[in-house]
């Protein structure tokens, strides 16, 4: 992409566009361009898919043992039992 100045220009606003934070006239300009530019359409679709994918990643869990060791390192052992199921 970025063959035309229009594509490059458009690129900077794509995250705002996907997040619904772009001004109405910016959205309109982007949509007009997308209707005519296959390359940018692919970039927008795959960018949007990328965002959707990383939002489905499960957050890493802290192991229980790490929490126990943390309480010990902070001299809070006596409380660690309170918070374990």
């Amino acid at each position, binding site marked *: *992409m*970025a063959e035309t100045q229009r594509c*490059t220009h458009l*690129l*900077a606003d*794509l*995250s*705002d566009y996907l997040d619904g934070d772009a001004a109405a006239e910016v959205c309109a300009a982007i949509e007009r361009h997308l209707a005519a530019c296959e*390359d940018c359409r*692919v*970039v927008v*679709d*795959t*960018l949007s*898919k*990328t*965002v959707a*994918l*990383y*939002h*489905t*990643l499960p*957050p*890493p*869990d*802290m*192991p229980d043992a*790490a*929490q126990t*060791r*943390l*309480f010990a*390192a*902070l*001299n*809070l052992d*006596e*409380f*660690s039992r*309170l*918070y374990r199921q």
Partner: protein
Amino acid sequence: MTETELIDRIQAGDKAACAACVELHAPAVYRLALRMLGSPEEAEDAMQETFLNAFRAIESFEGRAGLATWLYRIANNVVLMRLRKRQPLFVPIDLHGAAGDGEDAAVTPVQLFDWCCLPEEDFATTEAQGELERAIGELPLPLRQVFVLRELEGLSTEETAQTLELTPANVKVRLHRARLWLRERLADYFTELATEKAHG
């Protein structure tokens, strides 16, 4: 107990309040450290260091930023120190300037294959998730710092800016670049997958 009460009690040396604070915020500090450092052992060490530093400095906490943001900020500093130690010739990153090392990387889209139409099950595989995790782990540091806080931890643009001492505009630019960077990386993987499928 409100956050102000909790902080008052921690400042007064109340161990139960310290424990409550740890219970509440340790998982987030651990996630941040793990995403930034990549190793569970190092993440655990960084988490311990974060809370040790935090309780040592709690007197100077003014409450403007909120406890969670304050802890994220300390954790971020601990993580940066560790990354520096890991790489003896670590070039100091300009965290305030517009252009830092790697920040401009892959801003212009190169990959133009439309892999969106792969079947949904191809996106949900362990392999695909692993590819995504690896890509996040390889994001250039200035982009990763913003990406992890804003997109994975769900901080607002303003909170991310406060934590990393950046302007909100800079946070938005870095997030956008991180997304473009990840798109390129995922395109490598999914394009190959789609091509393999097409050729049986």
